[in-house]
């Protein structure tokens, strides 16, 4: 706002008496007054004086007030410069002519001096407010242009849209282009973002929820740009939605700058491979998510002869070799394999998201294979060899940093030993990896050769003295090592996924055998088979079982599927559905090792279980400090749930008596028999019933 002293008032009147009066009165208030005695003089002096307001007499010789007003209006617009006509011609016509000529207002003569200064001040205030508004608008517009910030305003009832020039410019449109409704605006969104943008806008209007949304737009010239859009709702006093105000900021440049900076920070300039920093971050991330079954393997690789190459062919040559070798390495990249230029001469590889240990051998072979072909530099054919160090999380080291460092150390050792070789982090690890690998390959071969066979551990109804069934247990009939118990191979089979083939083979053999014994008249035994959680995940176990039953001819009601508590603990609808299907075809479900895991009664109820198998550890406890409290509890609980019970690992008469006393008659354990190979089972049956007879005879 101008002070009076800064304000220039231009009085134009041919009557010097009036002029002097006006001058005297206004200069008393501090205004700076400029005078002209006719229209022509006013036009001439206007530019020099550049007044803030003009007081103009209408009736003047030659160029009158109307004409002067029209001429000055061409130089200064209505709101910037008030022109007040002083008119004695107090009729409607002269007022209209004044306004038509561009006058802002008029004061009729004789002038009312009491109100005069107020009239002038009022006109000056209006001018200042307009000027301030203009300044603000232009500052805002400049700021918006700088920030590439466009804005829009949607009137909710009428669906009419107002867009700022900057928004039009973001969309690549001329400023005279009109976007008149919501659709006009939304249509500039990228086709895949359109629905989201519309949903956000509608949500904002209906629910009054403002939003911030980053999305793509397609500009008029077809260019794709990224924008951040904010919007909020203006409501009237009654809470009705009136207007939606939105801003749109073009962040394309920002994003691409950020992307460039990000790329420079995280990628190697020469090879465009992830650098040490990004690689380390990725290793850390992978180790965080790796579950107990997964391993993360770090390979560090250095090319052996780079130094001599640099000495003979120069630094450029080593770059060429590194670049050529890095493109070969890139062929190994996959979702689970990350390759990095870790430092000048070292590449790092991370392989994760697998549990098949043979993967390590495959990967090592693949990397070594990359060195087989020569690299051409000018006329030279260069052969490179590599030293590779391998460190495995969590076998060798249990943090990301240690695993990386371990691989580096192993690489240095491989290099010291002459290069062209790979070494694991530790001798122990080298040996274990070798052993594991051998076992894995051995299992694979064993499955193919049918070395995995079921043993059968009888289950006896102690009350009736009958053999009711048996649990089939896997044994490895190893050609050189003899019969091997499961603990030696089950974990590796689980980790490598070989369990699927192994288990199928055992179940199929057992079903076949059980059916044969039924056909031979040895007895209709219940066959218990164990399933691993792997067989429930991404695997249609119920169809597989049905097929096996179909092939072997075994009646489904002779089959009992044993699952462990850990399967129940990862309870998913998939697992429950598989179990329900197995029950539908007539099989029963047992909960193995009950009581050792986290199963609760409520979980048990939601699981379709028919039989509870009491774990051997609780049976042992019968003679221990607990006096079999757990056994009693489990028996009582199972009865209340209407489930059958089998006691596992029963080894002596005391345990048997206690179990019978509490109502558990189904017994499995060494007290009756160890697990038997098929060929010994019929002998067991015969001798069992012979003993029974003898006992009865004694009685």
């Amino acid at each position, binding site marked *: 706002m101008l002070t009076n002293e800064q304000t220039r008032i231009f009085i134009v009147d041919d009557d010097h*008496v009036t002029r002097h009066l006006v001058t005297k009165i206004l200069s008393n208030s501090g205004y700076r007054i400029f005078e002209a005695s006719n229209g022509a003089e006013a036009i001439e002096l206007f530019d020099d004086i550049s007044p803030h307001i003009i007081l103009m007499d209408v009736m003047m010789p030659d160029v009158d007030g109307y004409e002067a007003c029209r001429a000055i209006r061409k130089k200064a617009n209505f709101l910037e410069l008030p022109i007040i006509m002083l008119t*004695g011609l107090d009729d409607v016509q002269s007022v209209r002519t004044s306004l038509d000529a561009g006058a802002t207002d008029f004061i009729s003569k*004789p*002038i009312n001096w009491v109100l005069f200064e107020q009239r002038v001040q009022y006109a000056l205030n209006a001018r200042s407010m307009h000027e301030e508004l203009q300044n603000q608008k232009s500052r805002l517009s400049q700021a918006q242009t700088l920030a590439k910030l466009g804005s829009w305003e949607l009137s909710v009832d009428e669906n009419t849209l107002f867009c700022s020039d900057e928004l039009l410019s973001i969309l690549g449109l001329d400023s005279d282009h009109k976007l008149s409704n919501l659709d006009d605006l939304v249509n500039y969104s990228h086709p895949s973002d359109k629905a989201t943008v519309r949903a956000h806008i509608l949500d904002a209007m209906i629910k009054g929820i403002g939003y911030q949304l980053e999305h793509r737009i397609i500009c008029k010239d077809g260019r794709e740009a990224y924008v951040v859009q904010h919007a909020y709702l203006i409501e009237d006093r009654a809470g009705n939605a009136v207007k939606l105000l939105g801003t749109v900021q073009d962040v394309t440049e920002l994003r691409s700058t950020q992307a460039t900076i990000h790329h420079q920070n995280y990628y190697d300039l020469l090879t465009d491979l992830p650098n040490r920093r990004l690689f380390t971050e990725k290793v850390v991330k992978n180790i965080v998510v790796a579950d107990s079954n997964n391993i993360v393997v770090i390979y560090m690789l250095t090319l052996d002869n780079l130094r001599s190459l640099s000495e003979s062919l120069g630094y450029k040559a080593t770059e060429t070799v590194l670049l050529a070798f890095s493109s070969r390495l890139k062929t190994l990249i996959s979702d689970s394999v990350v390759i990095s230029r870790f430092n000048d001469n070292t590449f790092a590889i991370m392989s994760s998201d697998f549990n098949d240990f043979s993967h390590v051998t495959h990967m090592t072979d693949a990397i070594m294979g990359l060195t087989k072909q020569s690299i051409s530099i000018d006329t030279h054919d260069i052969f490179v060899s590599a030293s590779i160090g391998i460190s495995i999380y969590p076998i060798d080291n249990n943090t990301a940093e240690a695993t990386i460092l371990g691989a580096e150390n192993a690489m240095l050792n491989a290099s010291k030993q002459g290069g062209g070789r790979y070494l694991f982090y530790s001798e122990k690890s080298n040996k274990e990896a070798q052993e594991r690998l051998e076992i894995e390959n051995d299992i694979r071969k064993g499955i193919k050769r049918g070395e995995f066979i079921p043993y059968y551990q009888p289950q006896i109804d102690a009350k009736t003295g009958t053999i009711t069934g048996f649990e089939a247990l896997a044994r490895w009939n190893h050609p050189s090592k003899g019969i091997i118990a499961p603990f030696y191979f089950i974990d590796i089979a689980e980790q490598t996924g070989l369990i699927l083939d192994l288990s199928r083979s055992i179940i199929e053999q057992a079903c076949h055998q059980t059916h044969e014994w039924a056909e031979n008249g040895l007895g209709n035994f219940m066959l218990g088979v164990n399933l691993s959680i792997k067989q429930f995940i991404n695997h249609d176990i119920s169809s597989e079982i049905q097929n096996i039953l179909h092939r072997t001819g075994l009646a489904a009601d002779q089959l009992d599927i044993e699952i462990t508590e850990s399967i129940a603990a990862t309870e998913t609808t998939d697992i429950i559905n598989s179990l329900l299907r197995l029950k539908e075809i007539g099989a029963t479900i047992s909960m193995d090792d009950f009581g050792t895991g986290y199963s609760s009664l409520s979980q048990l109820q939601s699981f379709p279980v028919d039989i509870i198998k009491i774990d051997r550890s609780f049976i042992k406890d019968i003679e221990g400090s607990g006096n079999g409290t757990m056994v009693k509890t489990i028996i009582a609980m199972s009865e209340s749930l209407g489930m059958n019970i089998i006691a596992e690992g029963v080894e002596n008469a005391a345990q048997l008596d206690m179990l019978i006393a509490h109502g558990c008659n189904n017994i499995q354990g060494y007290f009756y028999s160890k697990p038997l190979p098929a060929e010994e089972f019929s002998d067991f049956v015969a001798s069992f019933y012979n003993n029974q007879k003898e006992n009865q005879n004694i009685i």
Partner: protein
Amino acid sequence: MSSEYPFSDLPTIDDAVASPLRELLGDSFFELVSDFTNDFPEKFDAIKTATNENDIESIFKLAHTLKSSSGSFGFTKLFKQLEYLELQARKNEIVNLNEQIDGLEQEFNEVILTLNKK
């Protein structure tokens, strides 16, 4: 209220206009009034000359100018007489011109007299 020529019912100086002006201007009031009273005879002579030459347009312009100044000071009767003349000149229907000239001269003297009294 519409007065008829020669507006003998109107005051020579209307205090409702003159007093606030005098307050606004302070001592300059008299300086500015002298401006008018010094200027008036010259313009009045010009009107008389124009009358002799039957120059209606000049009569109109002169009457207009004198009218606004006299109105500004609150010389109401003089203002009305000049307005009356201006209006007739604009319509080019001047009647009793000589009578009006005499009336103006008489009223101007009355203004001077009244001012001197104050």
